[in-house]
C-alpha cells in the first residue's frame, strides 16, 4: 500500500500579532511548525500502515528552512519526506499548491491513498483536498474520523455538521482528516533516533517536477491587494482582589458600570 500524506509546516498562528496603531499583521519572526492537524494526518496513515503494511511518503510544499521540521512526522512512522521548495514570487495560493502537489503525485505514482488535513493551521481555507480530488479525478472523502482499508476500497466515518456518515470509495482516493481526529502517538527516544536516518529530499517545482512558472501563474486569476490585521480594542483590565469573593464583587460592579448588567435596588422590590 502506497500511502501519501500531504503535510505542511504552518505559521504558528498563536504567535501572529497585530500592530494596533497601523493595523499591520506582524509575520516577521513567527515560527514555522508542523501543523496540529498534520500530525493527525500522519497518525491516521501510521495506523493504516500498521494494519495493511506498505510505505508512507510525505509530500510538502514550503520554504527550504522547513526541512528540519519533519522530525516528529518521521519519528511517528513516515518513511520518507519530499519537500518541494516554494516557488519564489508566487503567493502561496491553494490553486498553485494543488498543481505542484498533482505533479509530485504523478512523479511518485502509483499512489493508493492520499491523506491530508481538512485545512492547514495558517491558511485554513479547506481547499487542498477538494481541489486535488478534482485535479486527479480520484474520489474525495472529507472530514474523516475513522478509516479502514478493505481490499481496493477505503471506508471512512465522515464528521459532518448534522450527521456522521460512513462512506466507501474505491482506491486511489483523497481523504481529508477531521479536526482533532487520530490523536498523535507519543514519540520514544528510539523512534527519534531512527527518524534521523530517514531521507528528506528537496525538490524544485521546475527542475524536478517539470512545472513551468507560467503554468501555475495562469491558474491564479486573483490579485491579493492588501492584507491587514484585525484590530480589536479591548480594555484588558485585570481584576485583583484579596479573595475571590472580592474579585467577583468588583467584576459585577464593573459590568453594572458598563450597563451590561443591572442591580435591582431595594426600593424596586
Amino acid at each position: 500500500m502506497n500511502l501519501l500524506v500531504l503535510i505542511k509546516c504552518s505559521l504558528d498562528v498563536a504567535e501572529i500579532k497585530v500592530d494596533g496603531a497601523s493595523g499591520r499583521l506582524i509575520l516577521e519572526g513567527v515560527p514555522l511548525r508542523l501543523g496540529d492537524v498534520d500530525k493527525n494526518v500522519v497518525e491516521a496513515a501510521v495506523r493504516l500502515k500498521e494494519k495493511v503494511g506498505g510505505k508512507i511518503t510525505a509530500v510538502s510544499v514550503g520554504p527550504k528552512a522547513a526541512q528540519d521540521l519533519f522530525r516528529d512526522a518521521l519519528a511517528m512512522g513516515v518513511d520518507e519526506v519530499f519537500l518541494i521548495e516554494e516557488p519564489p514570487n508566487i503567493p502561496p495560493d491553494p490553486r498553485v499548491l494543488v498543481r505542484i502537489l498533482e505533479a509530485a503525485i504523478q512523479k511518485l505514482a502509483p499512489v493508493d491513498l492520499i491523506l491530508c488535513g481538512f485545512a492547514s493551521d495558517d491558511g485554513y481555507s479547506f481547499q487542498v483536498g477538494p481541489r486535488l480530488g478534482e485535479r486527479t479525478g480520484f474520489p474525495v472523502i472529507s472530514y474523516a474520523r475513522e478509516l479502514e482499508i478493505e481490499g481496493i476500497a477505503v471506508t471512512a466515518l465522515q464528521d459532518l455538521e448534522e450527521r456522521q456518515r460512513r462512506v466507501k470509495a474505491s482506491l486511489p482516493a483523497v481523504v481529508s482528516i477531521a479536526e482533532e481526529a487520530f490523536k498523535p502517538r507519543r514519540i520514544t527516544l528510539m523512534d527519534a533516533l531512527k527518524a534521523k536516518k530517514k531521507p528528506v529530499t528537496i525538490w524544485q517545482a521546475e527542475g524536478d517536477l517539470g512545472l513551468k512558472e507560467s503554468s501555475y501563474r495562469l491558474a491564479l486569476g486573483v490579485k491579493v491587494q492588501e492584507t491587514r490585521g484585525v484590530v480589536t480594542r479591548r480594555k484588558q483590565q485585570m481584576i485583583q482582589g484579596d479573595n475571590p469573593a472580592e474579585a467577583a464583587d468588583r467584576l459585577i460592579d464593573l459590568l453594572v458600570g458598563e450597563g451590561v448588567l443591572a442591580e435591582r435596588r431595594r426600593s424596586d422590590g
Partner: protein
Amino acid sequence: MAEEQILTFSENSVLAAQLLGKAYRSTGSAAFVICGGIELPRGVRVDQVIKADAGHADAPSADEVVRVLTEAVRQYAPRVVLVGATKLGLEAAPRAAERLGCGYAAWAQDFVIEADGLTRVWVSVYSGMGTAEYHFAAETVIMTVPAGLFEPQAGEGDPLGIPLKIPMAASTLEVLETIPRQAQETGLEKARAVVDIGRGIKTQADIPLAEQLAQALDASLACSRPLASDLDWFEDWLGLSGQVVAPELLLAVGVSGAAQHIVGIRKARVIVAVNQDENAAIFTAADYGVVADLYAFLPLLTERLKQRQIHLP
C-alpha cells in the same frame, strides 16, 4: 438575466436566508439554487429558484452539489455565487471552482462588484487574525460565506421556479450508514449574554458549574471547539468554523483564546475572561480578566450575582 447576477446556495436555511438578503440588496434580485432535500428558506425575499433534480429528496452529497454549482455557473454565468460556509459548502465550492477554472474566495466577509468588471472581495486570513482584499477580473467568483454577516431580507410570494438539468454521473462514494445528530436549538445568535466554556472545564460532570452561572445571568451556554469536536459534549462551538455570537456580555471561562475561537466571540460588546493561566491569550481579547481557579471562582460569582439580585438590564 442581469449581468451582475448573484446566485446563492446553502443547505442551511438560516445561512441561505442571509445570503439571499445580501444578493437582493446588491443586485435587486435574489436567486437560490436548490437540489435534493434542500428547502427554500421561509419568510424571505426570493425571486428565482433554480431547481436541479437530484433524483431524490435526501441531503445532497458533495458530488451532487459540485455538479449543480458547476452547471448553474455554466448556464447563468453569474458574477458571484455565494455558498454558505458549512462543511458541505467548504468542500463543494472549491471543487466547483477548480472544475470551472473560475475565481474562489474562502471565508468571504464582504464583496463589491465594480462597474469595470472587477470584483473586490474581503476575506478572513490567518484563521481570522487578518483580512485580505482580493481582486478578481471579470469572471465568476464563488465565495464561501460564514453565518452571521448579512441580514435576511423579509419578503414573501411566489418565486419563479426554473429547472436546471445536471448531467448524470455515478456517485463516487457509497453511503454505508448515516448517524444523525440531535439538532440543538441553542438560540445563541440572539442571546444577550453568553457563558463560553473551554478546556479549563475538566470533565463533563463539571458543566453544571457553568450552567448555574448561565442561569443566574439568563445567559446561553456555549463552548470552544475541543469540547464539541473532540469531546462531543456539545453539538456546536464558537469560532471561525463554528458559530459567531454578538451578545452584550460574554464570559469566557477556562478558554485559552485560540485565534479561531476569538473570531466567534469578538463581536460581543463586553468580554470577561476567567482563566487560571495569567498568560492565556484570551486576556488580550477581553475587557476584564480574572486570574482564578474557575472551580473556586464560578460558584462564588454565581452566588454573589444571586445575592445582589443582578440581572440583565
